[in-house]
């Protein structure tokens, strides 16, 4: 039986702003408000806002919260030195596959975790299962909406709407957040631009959305969110990695905290065995200078070495050519060929990301 998609607290705001709504991970979400390309450009050049209320915010409290998270996550929450500091991590299964990728913040009374919408049910089940018998309380915060305001002018425009908070918001360093009553403002994002992710009580979200429009922030949809994150070389769960893919083959090696050696997180043994045996594949960027668009699932041929696959591909609005994230044999070359609708087409193999702060960064 198919259920009607859920609506975020900003559903009516999107309709009023002219959004084209689509179903995404069980939610009715704006794909664009007219032109995905224009929305992409506004985030690179000015400020856009994405409704990310479909993502799942979970507060974690209890005396065992820290120890449990240190056993649950491949990155180490012991690195979180002060309240509001954020950590990106994979949550792995025993085989070392990625159950989800997430952000965890140190809160005043424990931790706050943000996980993907598409993995909501299995993540919550995994959190409950692994915390069983421990002094850990999980509270899913469906009472909060979340807006990502992103772009070079994003912080200025949020500060114009929240002048009383401006000084503290401007003081935030990258990957840091601060609570303001029930609100939480963090300098994080998924676009490769500066900006904020703001959790706001659901009832206050529509007025905040309207105020941001008044301050010159453009509503931007999931379409632009995907091209922005791809240019920024950021993984999308279920595409660039999943439970069958090791973080070491998905560009997430930097998120695995190997030290201290005695910290036994779920998946550690499997990852250590992979390191000993040698990791076969790695994540790279592909750039195609000829016409056409690289797409997820296309075969990548590295001459004389082996084959890989495109895990995400698109047309890059910033670079005006097609780019992709791919998983290829570790001993890859500088060039490869992609099976583009039946024609093997030459692409360059580059290091991610493609774009940061509005500028091309790959060589």
């Amino acid at each position, binding site marked *: 039986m198919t259920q009607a998609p859920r609506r975020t607290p900003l559903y009516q705001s999107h309709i009023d702003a002219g959004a084209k709504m689509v179903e995404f991970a069980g939610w009715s979400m704006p794909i664009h408000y007219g032109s995905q390309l224009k929305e992409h450009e506004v985030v690179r050049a000015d400020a856009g806002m994405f409704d990310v209320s479909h993502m799942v915010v979970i507060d974690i409290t209890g005396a065992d919260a820290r120890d449990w998270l240190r056993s649950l996550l491949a990155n180490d929450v012991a690195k979180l030195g002060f309240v509001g500091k954020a950590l990106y991590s994979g949550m792995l299964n025993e085989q070392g596959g990625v159950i989800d990728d997430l952000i965890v913040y140190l809160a005043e009374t424990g931790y706050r975790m943000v996980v993907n919408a598409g993995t909501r049910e299995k993540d919550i089940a995994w959190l409950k299962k692994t915390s069983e018998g421990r002094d850990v309380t999980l509270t899913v915060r469906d009472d909060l909406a979340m807006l990502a305001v992103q772009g070079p002018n994003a912080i200025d425009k949020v500060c114009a709407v929240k002048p009383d908070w401006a000084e503290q918001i401007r003081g935030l360093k990258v990957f840091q957040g601060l609570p303001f009553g029930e609100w939480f403002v963090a300098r994080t994002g998924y676009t490769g631009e500066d900006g904020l992710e703001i959790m706001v009580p659901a009832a206050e979200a529509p007025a905040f959305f309207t105020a941001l429009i008044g301050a010159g922030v453009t509503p931007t949809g999931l379409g632009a969110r995907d091209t922005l994150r791809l240019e920024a070389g950021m993984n999308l769960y279920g595409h660039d990695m999943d439970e069958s893919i090791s973080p070491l083959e998905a560009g997430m090696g930097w998120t695995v905290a190997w030290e201290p050696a005695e910290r036994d997180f779920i998946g550690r043994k499997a990852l250590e065995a992979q390191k000993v045996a040698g990791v076969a594949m790695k994540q790279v960027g592909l750039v195609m200078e000829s016409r056409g*668009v690289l*797409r997820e699932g296309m075969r990548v041929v590295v001459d004389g070495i082996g084959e890989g696959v495109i895990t995400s591909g698109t047309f890059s609005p910033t670079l005006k050519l097609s780019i992709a994230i791919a998983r290829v044999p570790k001993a890859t070359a500088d060039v490869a060929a992609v099976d583009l*609708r039946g024609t093997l087409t030459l692409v360059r193999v580059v290091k991610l990301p493609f774009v940061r702060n509005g500028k091309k960064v790959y060589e």
Partner: protein
Amino acid sequence: MSQIPAELKYVESHEWLRLETDGTVTVGITDHAQELLGDVVFVELPKVGATLARDEQAGVVESVKAASDVYSPIAGEVVAVNEGLEAEPEQANTAPYAEGWFFKIKPANVADLDGLMTAEAYAKEIGA
């Protein structure tokens, strides 16, 4: 709401056709098609002089979202292609019935047009 000009003919694969005064037929993709595709970023057009059968692949339109084949809605010889569209593919979004045309064909049999969908039939087809 999609625009569906009354004076044009349509086919199920979302191309439109316009019979010109010189007897050629101009072909493009409909407003509904461009809405489904989203922002168009590349087009591939047929070669001038190519002879196409009805429903034969005539080109490709790629949007940020997906690649789709463009079919010839009528049999004939390609007599012109819109090079301006290759340079500015967004015209398929902004002016699908004007600057966003794809190619012109000299129909093998101009009567073939009669069997194609009217604007009214196409509106029904797409549920507009």
